[in-house]
């Protein structure tokens, strides 16, 4: 159905793709795999006509050679892309989102509603077509986008991380739908970080690494370990390097800490220099809230905090910074990096005051940024490119670099490896090991249990805003943590 050959793309200062091939057959689910920054997004943009490839590329769709690929043209030829963040018109109704640009010059709203209901039925969805699309749940938005693609008679469907923000149940339903569409003869290109998903549904796998084409493999030839090897290009023998650092004195202690408005109560914890303290708990158990209290974003309403053994007053972020605390928040895009600013300014953001008095010492700023970027292995053309142009893993490193620039004594990491690829994940884990060996204390919040179990010296489990228990590494097992996190009888 779709065939891309000799695809290369050079951006000023960076080569995004070279020698990439992709062939997609009708009635197949084809997985496109690669780490963040491997060139998957660029390839999709070329396939959908949003970005023009370098000369020499050959694009065929439905047997037809396409020389003038624009989004409109590719769409007319039957190609549709469902992006990770649905590109819906949130103010417009579901029906309008489905039918936009599909009617004649004059619109019949009744016919629209009927067509919309039929389109939704095809993807097994049934919601009010007059609601504004902005009010739908994430899973519903994904279905709406797929329905829209299908209603345009798409023969090639590109799904970009469709399950990234879906809960398990919704994700399963989506995979069922993909299988159903395959049976109907749609050619599906499926991009994801969740290997289990593609191992379940994909027929063939194309792997990219650093913009280069690694190969295409039928399902029978690959397993999870081989795919990871192909993507990373190296053996990731130890995914979670044990820190092996010496424990020093207590860096941070809380006594009966609480924050009324977010339901956090009676938290008594310690974390030592050289220690990684894991914070586990279900969504809403109060992990992020605890981090916010410690960092002065939501000042404590009860209890006390001791830093380096001395009682500390943390009423605002400035207090926390002065005490040597640093917090890398969960949502990279919202609170982590400033996408429009260059790397160097992102990194120096938290230490501007230290870099000279009235005038900013730009030489010192660049030196600091260059040093940290190199130390963390940030992959970027230069420290002057906008942070938003980097891949997720590299953005996370930039966020981390900013807080390391403050030379903290206690580092709070909130979901530091969420949504980034295996390679970058391993690098961040290695870096955490290195930091604790240097005497830092780390509080690690993570929803990924293997990560916590592999990295943390102790795991504190929160449940409903209270401390349910603390497990030393030796006693911490998946079952023990889950037991504490979910047990609901006594509180």
């Amino acid at each position: 159905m779709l065939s891309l050959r000799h695809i290369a793309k050079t951006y000023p200062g960076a080569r995004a793709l070279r020698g990439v091939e992709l062939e997609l057959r009708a009635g197949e689910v084809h997985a496109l795999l690669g780490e963040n920054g491997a060139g998957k997004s660029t390839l999709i943009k070329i396939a959908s006509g949003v970005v023009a490839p370098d000369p020499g590329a050959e694009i065929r769709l439905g047997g037809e050679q396409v020389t003038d690929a624009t989004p409109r043209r590719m769409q007319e030829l039957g190609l549709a892309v469902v992006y990770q963040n649905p590109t819906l018109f949130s103010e417009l109704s579901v029906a309008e989102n489905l039918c936009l640009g599909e009617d004649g010059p004059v619109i019949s709203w009744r016919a629209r509603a009927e067509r919309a209901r039929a389109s939704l039925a095809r993807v097994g969805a049934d919601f009010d077509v007059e609601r504004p699309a902005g009010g739908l749940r994430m899973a519903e938005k994904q279905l709406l986008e797929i329905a829209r693609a299908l209603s345009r008679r798409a023969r090639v469907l590109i799904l970009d991380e469709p399950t990234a923000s879906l809960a398990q149940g919704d994700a399963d339903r989506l995979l069922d739908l993909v299988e159903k569409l395959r049976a109907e003869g749609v050619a599906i290109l499926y991009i994801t970080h969740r290997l289990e998903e593609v191992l379940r549904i994909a027929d063939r796998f194309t792997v990219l690494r650093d913009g280069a084409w690694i190969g295409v493999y039928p399902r029978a030839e690959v397993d999870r370990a081989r795919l990871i090897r192909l993507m990373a290009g190296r053996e990731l023998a130890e995914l979670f390097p044990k820190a092996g650092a010496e424990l020093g004195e207590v860096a941070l202690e809380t006594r009966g800490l609480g924050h009324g408005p977010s339901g956090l109560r009676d938290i008594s914890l310690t974390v030592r220099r050289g220690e990684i303290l894991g914070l586990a708990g279900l969504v809403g158990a109060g992990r992020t809230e605890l981090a916010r209290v410690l960092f002065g974003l939501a000042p404590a309403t009860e209890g006390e905090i001791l830093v380096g053994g001395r009682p500390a007053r943390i009423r605002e972020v400035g207090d926390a910074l002065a005490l040597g605390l640093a917090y890398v928040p969960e949502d990279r895009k919202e609170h982590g990096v400033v996408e429009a600013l260059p790397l160097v300014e992102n990194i120096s953001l938290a230490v501007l005051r230290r870099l000279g008095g009235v005038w900013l010492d730009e030489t010192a700023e660049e030196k600091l940024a260059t040093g940290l970027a190199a130390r963390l292995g940030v992959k970027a053309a230069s420290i002057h490119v906008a942070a938003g142009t980097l891949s997720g893993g590299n953005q996370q490193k930039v966020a981390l670099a900013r807080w390391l620039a403050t030379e903290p004594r206690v580092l709070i990491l909130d979901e530091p490896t969420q949504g980034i690829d295996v390679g970058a994940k391993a690098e961040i884990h290695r870096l955490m090991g290195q930091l604790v060996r240097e005497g830092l204390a780390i509080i690690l919040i993570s929803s990924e249990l293997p990560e916590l179990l592999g990295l943390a010296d102790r795991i504190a489990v929160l449940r409903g805003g209270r401390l349910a228990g603390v497990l030393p590494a030796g006693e911490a097992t998946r079952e023990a943590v889950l037991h504490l996190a979910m047990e609901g009888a006594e509180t």
Partner: protein
Amino acid sequence: MKDWVKKHPREAALLGAIAVLFLLPLGGVDGFYTAGNLRNLAIDNLPVLLAAAGMTVVIVAGQIDISIGSQFVAGGIAAGLLARSGLPMPAVALATLGLGALFGAANGLLVTVARIPAIIATLATMVLLRNGVLRATGGDWIQGLPSGFQWFGLAPASAPLVYLAGAGLVFAAAAWALRHTTAGRAFYAVGCDHEASRRVGLNPERRVVAAFAVLGVATAAAALLNYTRYPTIETNGGLGFELKVIAAVVVGGTAITGGRGSLIGTFLGVILLGSIGTVFTFLHVNPAWEKAIQGAILLVAVVADTAFGRRREGTSP
């Protein structure tokens, strides 16, 4: 009825406010409810109504145009000069509308091709156009207009009614087209999400230029209806016109961020803001209150808007 109110809270609130406003003069005030007064009230607000229709399109498409006050006076002066040069009135009207389309398209091109944010681009054209008008006329009023210029040569008694009927029809047609044609809905899509509309195959740049051109034509039409009412044309007219128009559109429920709004709402917004002054005059309220109340209404509308928007996004605490 209940459903309608639920689905159209803004329109319902505006209708309520307008009802209250028009009930006030019933309490023993003479002269408000006379044919002459109501006709004057309506005709005074016609230019704002027409321009507001165009402005609704521009704001729905996610843009703004603050140069329409200058476009308004430039249109009036162009019409006057053309009429004085001996052109027949239908040709004068066409030429003025065409000039309006050019002004609008120029703004649109500055925004799309030169990629200047609309508020800056139209601030520049606002200043340029107003100074151009002053330079061209030397600040003198346009006088000595042919007799056929005033009211397009219609009888002064019937002309206002013809204007009202004509403008009403055009407005109704525009309201229908904006809701029920693909071209109309495309403005909503573009204003809602520029990138997404490109992905469904609309050409957002072209739509934005079109929106500005529509507003240019609407503003020229407003100028024609306004300036043909007088025997002379002031060269300093149209000051603050853009603010009146934008206020009416926003009060009418069009989201300043684009993608949401209707001409019905704009119609009600124009009536509400446009009638306060007259009602207050008849009630012998200090005219200073007019602006204050208009400002308060605008504020309430915007606050209601953001609260409503937030609730729908589901981010409200």
